[in-house]
């Protein structure tokens, strides 16, 4: 489970002064559910997910991920999550197998556990064809599969996806969406950010609309339609953004 409590992140910039990238954000994501963060560019989605992944430290507030506090137990949090974002690239000079092995070892897996898990994962993701290919020679879709395998090798309870279909073609994006649904089916807690409305509609059980670092609306797609009186998520998003002072 993920629980954010008044999570706030302030950046200080010499020119722009104080920037509240995430401002008093509170939400709860449950196991076996997909929680979506919907927002435009600069809304604070990536910062929020980086806070949950303990890559950044909150300025104030707190969050619990898989039962661990992000501020006081960051290493335990990272051991319990699989984090995939546009910023998490692959080591180009390693092969797909070497890369996934490396992250398995960094997660403390023994060789006896690592080997069968890696084989099963490569088979499930249909990656055996390019398992010994260098990552810098792979296509975007193949790379995304390697990234997914990297996030899953230690079988985390919580999955954090930051725009996972960014830059992918339709088929690769569909494969990623299928994988996210599989995570939900396996009972994992999934948090997912995007600015693509259709992905939100198809995948998420709960949607939070993030604007200027704050959650302006939250609920299931049905609840949001009812509250704003619009059927289309894009219309709902635009209304939320326009209503924000």
């Amino acid at each position, binding site marked *: 489970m993920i629980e954010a409590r008044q999570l706030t992140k302030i950046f200080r910039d010499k020119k722009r002064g104080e920037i509240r990238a995430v401002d008093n954000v509170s939400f709860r994501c449950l196991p076996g559910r997909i929680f979506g963060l919907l927002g435009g560019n600069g809304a604070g989605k990536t910062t929020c997910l980086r806070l949950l992944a303990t890559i*950044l430290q909150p300025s104030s507030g707190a969050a619990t991920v898989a039962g661990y506090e992000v501020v006081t137990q960051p290493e335990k949090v990272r051991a319990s999550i699989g984090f995939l*974002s546009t910023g998490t*690239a*692959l080591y180009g*000079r390693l092969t797909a197998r070497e890369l996934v092995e490396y992250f398995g070892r*960094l997660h403390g897996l023994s060789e006896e556990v690592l080997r069968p898990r890696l084989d099963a994962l490569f088979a499930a993701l249909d990656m055996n064809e390019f398992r010994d290919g260098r990552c810098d020679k792979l296509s975007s879709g193949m790379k995304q599969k390697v990234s997914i395998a990297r996030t899953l090798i230690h079988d985390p309870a919580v999955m954090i996806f930051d725009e996972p279909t960014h830059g992918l073609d339709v088929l690769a994006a569909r494969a990623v969406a299928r994988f996210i649904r599989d995570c939900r089916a396996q009972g994992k807690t999934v948090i997912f950010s995007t600015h693509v409305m259709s992905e939100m509609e198809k995948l998420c059980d709960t949607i939070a609309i993030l604007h200027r670092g704050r959650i302006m609306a939250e609920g299931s797609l049905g609840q949001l339609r009812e509250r704003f009186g619009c059927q289309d998520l894009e219309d709902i998003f635009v209304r939320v953004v326009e209503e924000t002072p």
Partner: protein
Amino acid sequence: MSRRFIGIVYRKELRDLLRDRRTLVSMIVMPVIVVPLLMTGFGLASVKLGGKVRQEIPKVMVLGGEDSTNTVAALRALKSFAFVPPSPDFTNLISDKKINAALGIPTNFDAAVQAGEPAAVTIYTYEGEFKSTIAAQSLDQFFRSRRDHLVAERLAERHLPQKLLAPFDIRQANVASPKKVSGNMIGMILPYLVIVMCMTGAIYPSIDLTAGEKERGTMETLLCSPVARADLVLGKGLVVLTVSLATACLSLFSNGAALLMLKRLAGNAVKGNLLPLTLDPSSLLAVLVMMLPLAIFFSGAMLAVGLYSRSAKEANSYLQPMLICTVIPALAAALPGLDLNYGLALVPVLNVSLAGREIMSGLFHWNYIAVVFGSMCLYAALAVALAAALFKREYVLFRT
């Protein structure tokens, strides 16, 4: 701190780095192949060219001397010079390297010498020009020999002993062993070479593992792992250290081999005493041990600079001035009269360079060596601590 995770990071980073052609070029191709080849080629060419020039007959112009037939005849009889007709434009001819030197013999030179009156010949040269210097030396030698001969004749005429002008002899005797003589000379070059190679070897990996990772977007991937930041830094730092030391050692052995080869080849080209090359293995080992904290210091400092930088380009722009700041104190060990003392023993790089020179020449001032080693260990620890502290700072990690 977990040794297991440090080892995992170390092995991965080393493998990753060794697959990069640029690492192989900076670690192996440059120090092991290109630099020794250039050194040998250049050294051999200069020895051969020098020998060739010495065998050439210099072109000399004699100005005056029409009434000093004895001197001119003796000079011509040597057949060591090719004489060219006198010209009032001799200074330009020398400057334009058309002739190598000119000799000015004043009027009545022979008569004045015979009469015991003051007389002087002038040798006109192009100072610093190799062929001109050789020509001038030959002319100078001719006149000195002629003067000594004349003095000997005059002493004999007056029945005076030759000892009158040289009542005693001066001799120099080398009491240092060939190892020490060689060590003293090599001690001026070797610490400099190892220091500079340590640093150049560390430049590329320190950038690639820090700013390079930021640029490629793999830093965030790595930060997602549950491994403590300190373990990540130590794993990376050990890789930089390994490459740095490997570069220095490979460079040392390849340059040593090149020097030996040069000595053999040059020995065939010219006759005479060349640089003795006898190294004391224990001194060499001691120098390498002294280099260890310096190499750690370089690795930590450069890792910190790489971490702070937004990109490989920015890191390079910081590290190039750092290289210059290292070369100068490393070279300072070759300055005459600059000896190790307690103050200098605290100056990083310079201290190791000076201590290395002393050790190579067989001097083991243990008190200074202890201060140098201790202070460098402290600086190394501070540099690594700085890199580890920077690795925990969001501002630095996400400074892109």
